[in-house]
């Protein structure tokens, strides 16, 4: 019997087992995700995670679309953090082709990526608290507050790119849009508002005994498990490992920025919450530094093309990664010298993060499954790709 399906004897003394289907349309799945739970009473003893409902074979798409066409499609892998998904793809192309990226474009990429992290974490916090429901003072309260703040960031993205969800902001060699007049002032105002509201969220949650009971000691990922499964982002940092791609392998001028990488050691849902709350503030800090030090100059290193096949990448291969809102997002790219990649592999952070579920859910109650899954923050576009 496969290890993931092995039944662990815990809790309940009886020998009556119940198979329960959760999903694929369960509201807490934030996408389409099915879990086949084996229960003993209310305790979960085994989980079989069924994914693939949103599979579009992005890796095959990447092989059939050119380097000019694909970046805007790349944003559809992780549609909640589209900026970093695009960035992962164009970084891989630039790495293999050794294209230069102007410094202004690098800074604007950082600003976009960090604003995106704020927007993504807003959605995570809101939906997670809504999943845990009434215990947090009336279901949708935190959700609506978070969405209100997320809207402000999306408005800034709309002013920058014209789009609110899938941006098409990046292109190979730089970015497509320069900042509109007065944009930086608006961004600063947005950040000030969000920074103040973070205190409100924390006051609502940290002081809430129900919230603590539902998250502390729940869904513990050990240091060893985190590494063996390959989780990244807030999950691995919540398990005591200070691994952040922005530090481990700085890209796009991150070495110029001053920020902290939060680490918590408990490995539970609460630790992951703490990590993300600090990340909110660090992202705000990075965006402010980016706006302060924004260099002048061009935003793309290559002239516009008249046909989609005009950007060619010399023969070679490489792996480039960025720190997305959910962890390490990477692209492994093999080029045969043509206008399209020979092979494109997506390393989705959510895929690896979700793979930890079968190891941490058994032993918890059904209600905790929702809390644990929310703390993992999977986006199924990125899991299934």
């Amino acid at each position, binding site marked *: *019997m*496969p*290890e*993931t*399906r092995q039944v662990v004897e815990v809790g309940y003394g009886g020998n009556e087992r119940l198979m329960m289907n959760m999903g694929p349309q369960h509201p807490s799945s934030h996408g389409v995700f099915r879990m086949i739970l084996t229960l003993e009473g209310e305790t979960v003893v085994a989980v079989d995670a069924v*994914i*693939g409902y949103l*599979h579009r*074979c992005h*890796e*095959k798409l990447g092989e*059939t679309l050119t380097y000019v066409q694909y970046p805007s499609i790349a944003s559809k892998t992780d549609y909640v953090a589209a900026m970093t998904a695009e960035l992962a793809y164009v970084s891989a192309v630039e790495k293999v082709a050794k294209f230069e990226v102007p410094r202004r474009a690098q800074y604007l990429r950082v600003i976009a990526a960090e604003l995106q992290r704020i927007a993504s974490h807003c959605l995570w916090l809101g939906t997670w608290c809504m999943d845990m429901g009434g215990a947090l003072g009336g279901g949708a309260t935190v959700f609506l507050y978070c969405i209100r703040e997320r809207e402000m960031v999306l408005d800034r993205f709309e002013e920058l790119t014209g789009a609110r969800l899938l941006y098409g902001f990046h292109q190979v060699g730089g970015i497509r849009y320069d900042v509109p007049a007065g944009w930086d002032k608006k961004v600063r105002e947005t950040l000030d508002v969000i920074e103040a509201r973070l205190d409100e969220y924390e006051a609502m949650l940290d002081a809430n005994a129900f919230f603590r009971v539902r998250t502390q000691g729940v869904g513990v990922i050990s240091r*060893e*498990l985190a*590494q*063996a*499964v*390959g989780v990244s982002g807030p999950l691995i940092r919540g398990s005591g*490992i200070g*691994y952040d791609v922005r530090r*481990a392998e700085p890209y796009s001028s991150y070495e110029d920025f001053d920020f902290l990488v939060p680490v918590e050691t408990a490995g539970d849902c609460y630790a992951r919450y703490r990590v993300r709350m600090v990340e909110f503030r660090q992202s705000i800090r990075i965006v402010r530094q980016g706006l302060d030090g924004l260099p002048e100059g061009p935003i793309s290193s290559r002239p516009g093309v008249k046909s989609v096949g005009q950007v060619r990448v010399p023969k070679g291969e*490489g*792996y480039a990664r960025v720190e997305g809102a959910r962890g*390490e997002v*990477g692209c*492994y790219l*093999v080029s045969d010298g043509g206008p399209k990649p*020979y*092979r494109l*592999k997506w*390393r989705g952070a959510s*895929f*690896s993060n979700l*793979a930890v579920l079968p*190891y941490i859910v058994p032993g918890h109650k059904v209600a905790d499954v929702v809390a644990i899954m929310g703390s993992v923050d999977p986006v199924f576009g990125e899991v*299934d*790709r």
Partner: protein
Amino acid sequence: MTAADASALIRERFGIDAVADGGLGVTLPSQRWEEFARFARDELGCRYFNWLSAVDWKDQGFEVLCRVENLDAPLVVTMRTRLPAGETRCPTLTGLYQGADWMERECFDMFGVVFEGHPDLRRILLSDDWEGYPLRKDYAVDTPLAPYR
């Protein structure tokens, strides 16, 4: 463990020269795939399993790649093995890294690479009754869907 130390140790134990590709790149025969992964995990300290995938080199067979990391060093090791044309079997790493479970299932799903010893090798992204392996180069993009059953 610096990259130079690791490189020397690999040469001593496996007689292979690691290629510097941002980290260390090692090409192995598939018979030594699992042995090397164990060595990388236990002796090079690469306990972080990053990803595993394959490339279809048409008549030159599949290449299976696996990236593992030592996050403390930091050290990145990319293992590669080339399966001969027509060969689809490759040893599993699930006994060493839990993360290999889903990654190998995905690789099986997309390329039809059979990871021998994997405890639960079934399709993960596509439905169980899917025909063919989409990321193989001989799989046409416009392959019609099998009729609804």
